[in-house]
């Protein structure tokens, strides 16, 4: 057991730190934020730190998993912007195209993802299809040089802003096995017959949407992987959506926020820092977050040794779901009346940040597969219990 970095990794960490020192100002004025992020993205792209582990010949950094962890960790500690803004493109569309795409697809799509040119969105869920994704019904017919898509997708995050969609459709419903006959298509959002209707969520923002397909033509060359084998493409693409160590840094930041809040408030006229139940609750959150960090390191070690890691990632996803709900709610409950005041209210603290978090947890808790489904994964795939 050791937590030391190799000489090469130490050099790399120093390079990252120096880069941050040079390029990350102490404070960015609100009005300059957009420009700063654009500039930042250009610079990290030049460094080849966007898509850091992607193969060099595909425009990535060709770097190791360990160095990517170092990179993301240093960025998280310094609270810099991310590495590129094409979230879904970088997380699973790109890796899917690297693994299953044709040379032409790799050349057409990967550079734009790396350059943060626009957003991708993900068309998996449907009105009647959620957790049981493999039962999806949105149809596509093979018409020779193109597919003709008819049906509806639902909860498609970023659809109102995205340029492209990775879409799952059913091309063959004859098979008994629901996992067969699914095909993965890459669809331009401006395609004729494609309509996006934003849905407002309970926090008031409209980031996800319904997407309707009426005789939408998708050219053959935009099929990702073989026809009928789209399930495999999806599963391995989603495997990239790992609860990574760097993600824990985000929770650590929220914990810091919570501690800072505790230091500012009073309960019945006494500092909250002296309240034993507050102290213990916060220590309880800290304990879970530390266990996530170390779980992540243990699984990373396995990966570095070439051992497969798959269902174990549900462990941290479950912790994350619990923490997102409980930490957000705890901050609000500690603040009493002040806690429920939103952004523009004169009585709000920190621009209603906590009030927002107390309601926005479904982004994480429902968006990436619900806790019940994570528990099914653990009990069936790891513990070997029968499927329900």
């Amino acid at each position, binding site marked *: *057991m050791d937590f030391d970095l190799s000489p090469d990794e130490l050099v790399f960490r120093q390079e990252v730190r120096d880069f941050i020192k040079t390029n990350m100002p102490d404070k960015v004025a609100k009005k300059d934020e957009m420009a700063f992020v654009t500039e930042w993205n250009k610079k990290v792209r030049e460094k080849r730190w966007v898509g850091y582990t992607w193969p060099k010949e595909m425009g990535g950094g060709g770097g190791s998993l360990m160095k990517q962890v170092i990179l993301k960790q240093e960025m998280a500690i310094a609270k810099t912007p991310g590495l590129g803004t094409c979230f879904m493109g970088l997380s699973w569309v790109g890796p899917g195209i690297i693994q299953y795409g044709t040379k032409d697809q790799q050349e057409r799509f990967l550079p734009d993802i790396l350059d943060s040119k626009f957003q991708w969105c993900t068309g998996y869920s449907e009105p009647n299809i959620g957790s049981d994704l493999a039962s999806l019904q949105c149809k596509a017919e093979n018409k020779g040089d193109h597919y003709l898509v008819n049906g509806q997708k639902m909860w498609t995050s970023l659809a109102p802003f995205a340029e492209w969609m990775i879409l799952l459709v059913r091309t063959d419903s004859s098979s008994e096995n629901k996992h067969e006959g699914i095909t993965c298509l890459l669809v331009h959002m401006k395609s004729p017959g494609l309509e996006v209707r934003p849905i407002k969520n309970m926090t008031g923002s409209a980031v996800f949407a319904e997407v309707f397909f009426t005789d939408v033509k998708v050219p053959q060359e935009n099929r990702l992987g073989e026809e009928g084998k789209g399930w495999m493409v999806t599963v391995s693409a989603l495997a990239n959506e790992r609860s990574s160590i760097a993600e824990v840094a985000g929770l650590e930041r929220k914990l810091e926020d919570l501690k800072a809040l505790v230091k500012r408030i009073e309960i019945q006229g006494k500092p909250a820092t002296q309240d034993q139940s507050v102290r213990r609750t916060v220590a309880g959150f800290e304990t879970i977050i530390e266990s996530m960090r170390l779980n992540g390191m243990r699984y990373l070690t396995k990966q570095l040794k070439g051992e497969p890691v798959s269902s174990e990632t549900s462990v941290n996803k479950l912790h994350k779901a619990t923490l997102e709900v409980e930490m957000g709610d705890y901050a609000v409950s500690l603040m009493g009346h002040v806690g429920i005041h939103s952004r523009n209210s004169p009585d709000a603290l920190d621009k209603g940040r906590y009030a927002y978090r107390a309601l926005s947890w479904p982004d994480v808790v429902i968006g990436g597969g619900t806790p019940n489904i994570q528990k099914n994964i653990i009990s069936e795939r790891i513990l070997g219990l029968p499927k329900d």
Partner: protein
Amino acid sequence: MNFGFTEEQELLREQVRRFLDNKCPLTEVRKIAESKAGFSQDLWNEMAELGWLGITVPENYGGLGMGWVDLIVVLEESGRSLFPSPIISHNLAIDALLSAGTEQQKETWLPAMASGQKRGCIAINEKTNWHTPEGIRLQGLQERGLQEKGKQRSNGYSLTGEKHFVSDVDAADFYIVAFRADDKPEDITLAIVDSSASGVKTIMTETFDKTKREGILSLSDVVVPKDQILSEGPAATETLSRLLELGAVAVTAEAVGAAETALNITTEYAKERIQFGAPIGRYQGVKHPLADMYVDIESFKSLAYYAAWAADEVDGSLSRSASIAKAYASDAFVRIGTDSIQLHGAIGYTDEYDIQLFIKRSKWMRPAFGDTHFHQDRIAALSF
């Protein structure tokens, strides 16, 4: 970066597991637990032969010269089998000697401990039942009486009082005793007390976990010569904290193994027990609590491993990491013990069925070296 074990450590794990599977299955555990000694001298001797009693003892004192990362492999496996033995106490006494002992003290005890001839334990707690120095009230009187009789080896102390909840006290040949010397009562003093010293008596007590033994150490005018003082002043408080933290790591490592066995037993039962026409493990009311157990075990396993690593480092990270591990494990293990019984139904409540042994261990483990609240308070003290 490698947050995993070396091949040698994995080999050690294999060896310990095979040894315990062969020599000490749960049928044997029950027999040993009912015996008077509460542990098997024969198995202890065999472990000594294999070198496992001197894992953390440096080579120049006859040990293997390895660290806590190696030791927790053994502890995790001993927990997996609910192996009844004084191995944790033994190792805490070794660490006390290593971190605070004089050369002469080390030479007296360590080689004999590594070879299995002598055992030690730590006697810290009193009826106060606190895991902090404030809980220590036992008085050490400067040895005036002896001086008057002209025995000049003096400046030691005479101890009269009781230490409670002393793990493995009956099996030990010496005790690391914490007390307050009357010439510096604001500090703690740690000393080695030989079990053969005059005035020493042990009284066995009984908890519901018979795989773990403890008792009262009763001291009546027990003389502690100066050369048996282990440490004094702030250094003694530091040693005391380290022992508390290492104890927490050790029982958490055992809890990892024990909880995994409880999860295995319960999972296997859920696959076999048929109700409403299907294995109960198909129902989410059963499979989801099992998934929760898995999540908890994975998590306090990571925390225990990290704390063991910290125990071998000198960077001071042991204190926080030990507390985080124990804060997580104490309550989680009890939940696992409880759910294991519940998911079995009535059979789980019987004496004959093994799962009951695990809830007992979980409730034994909870207060040992501080419960969840105690450690949460230590964690919070680092922030607020």
